[in-house]
């Protein structure tokens, strides 16, 4: 049998097990392991005497992968980013942030909803996880909106959608994972997420203002904050600004050399939030809980990483990614149409799957194909299909798929953010939240279309960084 056929069978089998409910990390690792055995034994012409030899070699290849793959300095970003988010709760940055946004932005039509969007965007700057963001703001923002007569479905929708911003605006665990899978510069990807993240927030806010102007009862403006009150709200929320500035300057300093690496930026940011949490009364018991929670999320993510990388190692031996790339480039179709089809496929897949699992499982095959579509890893902008260099294409595609993955957090039937919001609020059903979040599909579709049509939104900042 041809290695590629084995690759297809094993990949298909893995998807079946994933659908049947096996933990994604272990389904991928098992597929990789079984695939390695099959491939090796196939190489031995299915000689029964050499079956155990094939198993032994495969066990050793698979067994060295977890250590080999997690022992990379760049991966240390993920736990640090996760820890910042958990420490931020204890530093009470969330309520401070919402209060500040309210005092500054709530005077516009749909004011509280707009404030919520900006507050989630701000919290996104210290949080790598979308679901956590949605859960926090469901508790803080929804009651305030209901108090002044908001439609409750709409209020819930705002929070569910606002939560998705956390994965575009750095720090973002999912962007780091993308960077590692495709072996691109983490710093540039994080930078690249910044403008599309803020852009998404602005699209959300504009849509809310539009809706509020059309239907008066959706969200009345909240006025009456004095300038003094506004400025007083800033200091408690300011550590967030500090953390954002620190992380950005470590990755890209507009006035000179970057201060260091993203990991160092994350660590210094975490340190600031840690001091803040201490100041706000965090003690050993709470720190221990925060560390355990950080460890849990970290280990969960890393298990998927090494599990999928065992599968990827098998793909390397089976040469499947190259074959898929050849197939994609041989299609008689405009490259941009193929790209749009790929994004639509992600929209469908993402309806049923977790974002990280989805990206990790598909990227090893899809990413080389997209790069080949553009003209290869090293293509110059002038010779490429999408009008950008190989490196820029990698960044652009990364932001697009992460935005797709975030979009999937609010689409039925398994939009996790909607379930979280409904779970926090006893007076809301999941159907309510899905109804309220519907306008945001349109906003997200518009955002994605604009990111596809004007790659400059994504690429401007990373291109400044050289």
């Amino acid at each position, binding site marked *: 049998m041809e290695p590629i056929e084995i690759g297809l069978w094993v990949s298909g089998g893995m998807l079946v097990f*994933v*659908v*049947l*409910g*096996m*933990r*994604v*990390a*272990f389904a991928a*690792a*098992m597929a990789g*392991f079984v695939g390695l055995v099959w491939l090796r034994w196939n190489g031995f012409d299915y000689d029964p005497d050499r079956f155990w030899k094939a198993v032994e070699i495969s*066990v*050793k290849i*698979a*067994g*060295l992968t*977890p*250590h080999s793959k*997690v*022992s990379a*300095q760049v991966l*240390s970003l993920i*736990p*640090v980013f996760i820890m910042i988010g958990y420490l931020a*709760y204890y530093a009470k940055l969330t309520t401070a942030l919402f209060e500040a946004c309210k005092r500054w932005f709530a005077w516009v039509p749909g004011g509280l909803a707009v404030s919520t969007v900006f507050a989630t965007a701000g919290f996104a700057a210290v949080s790598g996880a979308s*679901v956590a963001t949605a*859960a*926090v703001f469901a*508790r803080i923002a929804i009651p305030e909106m209901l108090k002044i007569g908001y439609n409750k479905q709409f209020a819930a929708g705002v929070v569910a959608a606002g939560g998705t911003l956390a994965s575009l605006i750095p720090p973002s665990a999912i962007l780091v994972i993308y960077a590692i899978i495709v072996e691109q510069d983490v710093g540039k990807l994080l930078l690249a997420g910044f403008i599309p993240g803020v852009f998404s927030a602005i699209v959300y806010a504009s849509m809310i203002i539009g809706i509020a102007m059309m239907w008066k009862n959706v969200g009345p403006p909240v006025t009456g904050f004095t300038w003094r009150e506004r400025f007083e709200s800033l200091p408690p929320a300011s550590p967030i600004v500090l953390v954002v500035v620190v992380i950005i300057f470590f990755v890209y300093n507009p006035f000179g050399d970057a*201060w*260091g690496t993203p*990991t*160092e930026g994350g*660590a210094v940011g975490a340190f600031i939030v840690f001091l803040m949490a201490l100041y*706000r*009364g*965090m003690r050993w018991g*709470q720190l*221990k809980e925060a*560390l*355990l929670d*950080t*460890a*849990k999320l*970290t*280990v*969960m993510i*890393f*298990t998927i990483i*090494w599990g999928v990388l065992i599968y990827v190692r098998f793909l390397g031996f089976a040469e499947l990614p190259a074959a898929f790339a050849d197939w994609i480039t041989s299609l008689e179709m405009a490259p941009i149409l193929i790209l749009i089809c790929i994004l639509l496929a992600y929209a469908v897949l993402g309806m*049923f799957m*977790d974002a990280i*699992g989805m990206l990790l499982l598909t990227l090893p095959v899809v990413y080389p194909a997209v790069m080949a579509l553009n003209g290869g890893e090293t293509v110059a902008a002038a010779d490429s299909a999408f009008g950008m260099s190989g490196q820029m294409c990698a960044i652009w595609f990364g932001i697009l798929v992460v935005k797709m993955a975030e979009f999937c957090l609010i689409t039925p039937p398994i939009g*996790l953010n909607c*379930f*979280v919001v409904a*779970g*926090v609020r006893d007076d809301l059903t*999941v159907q309510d939240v899905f109804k309220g979040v519907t306008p945001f599909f349109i906003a997200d579709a518009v955002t994605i279309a604009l990111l596809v049509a004007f790659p400059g939104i994504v690429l401007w900042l990373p291109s400044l960084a050289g």
Partner: protein
Amino acid sequence: MAGSAAVLEDSSLLSKLDRILLPIERFCALLSGLAIFSLMFLAAYSVTSRKFFGAPMMGYVDYIEAAMPIIAIMGVSYVQRDGTHIRMDMLVSALKGRTLWFFELISVLMILILIVALTYGAWEHFDRSFDCARLLCSRDSSIDVGIPIWPSKLVVPVAFAVLVLRLLLQAWGYGRALILGLENPVAVPLNLTIAEQAMIEAKALEGLTDGTD
């Protein structure tokens, strides 16, 4: 996501073993957490000494790489205990009773076989770097400061061995539920609907914020 599901307890031997293993797993996970915490200090220290004292830290990358297996893998069993490793539960959440326990049992048994194999493979990887006929028993060293790599490689089979114990308990738990037709078996993560899971997650966050007031 990282919501923890419920694991029931009673006075059975299985549940007792579950509760004996739990503190060990918690300790391993706490090691992960502490390693992450130290990472923060290490990076902050490295930045400070470089930026303000012009003396970059020797071996910074080596130490981080050595710590990564503790961070990434040590807590793997703790995460398996309450079913935090993500999966697609569209199908599973529609199942009930014996059918559900059957699916879960098969799934756990397959993971068990996989992890036993990986434990052996990871041990072999450690063993190749370990040779006590040599200085510091080292047959593989880091790139800048030449520290032995075997301790970092040893982390993986140790963490996996704990996971094997956990998987044995879970296989027992699901097997028992399958045979006895139990509704709410002990020592296994109970399959929550997404809504219930979201509720627990939100409660956890609530606890988190309230705790500091």
